[in-house]
């Protein structure tokens, strides 16, 4: 079948690497805590897609189960993370992470 040679697994590797690096850059350049959480979501998604791709290419369903559990944990993580962001906003009236430097010294 032509689809086998159409999309090699390396395409997924490159695509997911680029997506992951965009997420890393987002964590580095943003100081809005919300946008940092969103960049983390981007990274998680790139890894999920790569796991699913390898699972589909090697015919191993364990990878897709693993992606499912990652999604479960990510949902819990976002719920807690956003609650913390709301709490930070309530105490400092800003979600700028550079305000949170009390633990620095």
């Amino acid at each position: 079948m032509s689809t086998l040679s159409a999309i090699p697994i390396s395409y997924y590797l490159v695509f997911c690497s680029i997506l992951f690096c965009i997420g890393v850059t987002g964590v580095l350049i943003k100081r809005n805590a919300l946008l940092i959480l969103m960049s983390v979501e981007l990274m998680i998604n790139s890894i999920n897609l790569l796991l699913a791709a390898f699972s589909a290419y090697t015919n191993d369903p364990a990878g897709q189960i693993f992606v499912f559990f990652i999604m479960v944990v990510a949902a819990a993580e976002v719920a807690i993370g956003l609650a913390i962001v709301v709490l930070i906003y309530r105490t400092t009236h800003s979600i700028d992470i550079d305000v949170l430097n009390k633990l620095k010294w």
Partner: protein
Amino acid sequence: MFTQYIFYFLTVMALFSAVMVLVSKKPIHSVLFLTLTFFAIAGHYVLLNAQFLAVVHVIVYAGAIMVLFLFTVMLLNLNKDERSPKPLWVKIMAIMAGAMLLLTLIGVFRGYDIKTVNDPLTTQIGLVKELGRILYHDYLIPFELSSVLFLTAMVGAVLLGKKEQINK
């Protein structure tokens, strides 16, 4: 050939909206572009014939998580520019660091190829029937434990979001 075009289209869409998440000034635009990225990734799951994951991805990410983000942005009235963006040299350094990481990853992955056992378009492992059987046979304990995790997360989120009334 047709799947290849779909792959390129979804890839370009995902990468473009991922970049726009970082470039756009208002947080609400970032959230909406992130939703677009998630839909593109859901399309990728469909392309891999991982139908269960595609549906779960749309429900969990585009449904639950994005609504949470949108609510937070609107609740906190954050729909304005960042007050003090990071200085230019920090941004340049961050982009360079990201590009270095990308270069390293691509250098590692270059020339890598696995022996593809099957055609991802005709594989059956991503279907709900197949995954459900495995999930309820081999991974029953982790599946049940994840409900405890969700309960903990829910209690934690409520507890964190509650206004402090004790000790006053």
